[in-house]
């Protein structure tokens, strides 16, 4: 079976410094995959390479077997990949309801229509409400998104990311800067909304990753030093040495 996402020999150079130095990775459909690594390992860069925000210096990214090189973000999205952003990235001046509804438009076949009224479709409205229900924001539907609390905004962001119905969901540090209870809430949410989907997430918080991911890749200085199920990664001495050691000891 074709993997949902496949990276081959990915390199990225900014000027003279090479941030990503040859990443190969294959993620199967339906898998929950996490990419972890210490600060400055190139996690976000890798993330942006996959989603087409930066062009690769060399190497290929394939989504369901299709090369993504030179594709604009909206084209990648239409091929079934959706992403969130590390910094909260919602539409602050639009209502929460409108945020979600806009995210649904393309997948519901509206395209660039300027004769269809979006308000006319009960189906679209009910789908939007359904999604709002999933991310527990029904009561906030009419508020401008910019006034929500931080955790709510992150939840909304996840809602926007999954709304389009993409089967590969990429989340960039979805729990960054959150308290423990908020993190638990978001992790539950992610687990709930990504059922039957391929999930790729970059994360810093170990707890999140170990509870959620089927497999974990460890990225250190632009290279993947291990890809394995959580328990194996935990046991891997190279990983321990490079990154996890201190954190794990503190946990025990």
């Amino acid at each position: 079976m074709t993997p949902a996402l496949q990276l081959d020999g990915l390199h990225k150079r900014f000027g003279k410094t090479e941030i990503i130095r040859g990443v190969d990775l294959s993620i199967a459909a339906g898998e929950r995959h996490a990419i972890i690594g210490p600060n400055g390992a190139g996690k976000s860069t890798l993330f942006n390479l996959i989603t087409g925000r930066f062009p690769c210096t060399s190497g290929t990214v394939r989504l369901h077997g299709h090369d993504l090189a030179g594709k604009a973000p909206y084209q990648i999205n239409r091929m079934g990949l959706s992403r969130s952003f590390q910094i909260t990235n919602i539409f602050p001046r639009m209502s929460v309801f409108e945020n979600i509804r806009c995210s649904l438009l393309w997948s519901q076949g509206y395209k660039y229509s300027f004769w269809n009224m979006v308000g006319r479709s009960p189906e679209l409205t009910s789908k939007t409400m359904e999604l709002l229900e999933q991310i527990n924001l029904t009561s906030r539907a009419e508020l401008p998104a910019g006034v929500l609390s931080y955790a709510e905004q992150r939840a909304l962001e996840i809602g926007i990311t999954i709304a389009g119905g993409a089967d590969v969901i990429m989340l960039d540090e979805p729990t960054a800067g959150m308290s423990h209870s908020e993190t638990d809430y978001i992790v539950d949410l992610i687990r709930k909304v990504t059922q039957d989907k391929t999930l790729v997430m970059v994360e810093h918080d170990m707890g999140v990753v170990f509870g959620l991911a089927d497999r974990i890749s460890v990225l250190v200085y632009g290279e993947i030093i291990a890809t394995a199920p959580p328990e194996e990664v935990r046991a891997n001495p190279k990983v321990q040495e490079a990154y996890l050691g201190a954190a794990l000891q503190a946990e025990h």
Partner: protein
Amino acid sequence: MTGIPDSSSAVSPANGNALRSSLPWIVAVVVLLVLPQVFQANSAITILNQMMITIIFALSYNMLLGQGGMLSFGHAVYMGVGGFFCMHVMNLVEANELPIWLHVLPIFGGLFSLGLATIVGSFSTRKAGTVFAMISLGIGELVAACSLIIIVFFGGEEGISGDRTYFKPFFGVKFLQQNEVYYLIAFWTIVSALLMYLFSRTPVGRMANAVRDNPERAEFLGYSARWVRYFSFCGAGFFAGIAGALVAINFEILTETDLNLGKSGMILLITFLGGTGFFFGPIIGAIVFTLLQSVLSLQTELWQLYVGALFVATVMFFPGGLAGLLMMHQPAMRLGNLGLLVVPYVNTLIPAAIGALGLAGLMEMLFHVRHAAVGDIEMRLFWITFDSHTILPWVIAIATMITGFWLAYRNAPKLRE
């Protein structure tokens, strides 16, 4: 209301009752039908015509600025070009006695401007922000300069004039009188405003908001930010062209001043004054500005100074514009405690208004003393005649100004609460 804010257009439209959403439109139609009965003077109707044209133009500008987040310094180009094209159509109709009704002329103007917008938009909407703004400025300068050079189309500084009465009479109406023209313009105002309102409810209109707020995120929703901007831009061009056609019909002349940078800047001011965040904002802006322009300029030579000051004050204190100011009261209205606001309002706004009037009086007196003829020491201000060369009125003006502003300043914090 037409004023359902972008931010909370929310759940209702689909299942909300149709009457509620169409009520403002019915009211608008009734008001427009009644107005010419109230004002029968041709000049009043001419000003009303101009007001309606400005409303269409401002609404079309807000398709760019308010809904699409594109700041344009050259939007008058699309109004002017559409108008000029209509003048040529008008002259063709006169020369060849073509059987066309005057009513369809705006479609010609709209389509011609749409054509220009599709060309310019193809490269100017690739990016928003500064790049778009500067390209619009460049195009604006370019077309304004061309309008003095390409005489065949623009007629130089004289412009192109024509006669609307050679069109095929519409059930006997030959458009000799201003009020006949009024109903035509009113019809197109309602149609254009309704179409623009509906446009904002379409997927492209909705996504224009998304692209305005966050183009990068919008791209990951499957929409190309550029195409969304492009479609909004073309739509705005189309409606600006309709406004231009109505200028052609109302004034029977188009000149360089209809498309130069001054006009473009004016529409930016009008739209911002009214408020870009709400659909009805530009309508308020257009009404207020047209009134200021035609009424204030009859009263004082310093009207532009006052408009400039009003504008700067609006940006500084009410960035949401007049519409934003009105909508701030919506929550209070819903809670039914609007009454609570009355006292702080009286305490703050009335002294502020008095202070402003004092300042204006001071300016007027200064101006009078410096510019009036020697020996002409009498001046009329606020229906009072007095001698501007004695000290008393100055003291009064300064005192009112200072007390007014001081009281307003002191009470302002209470209002904010």
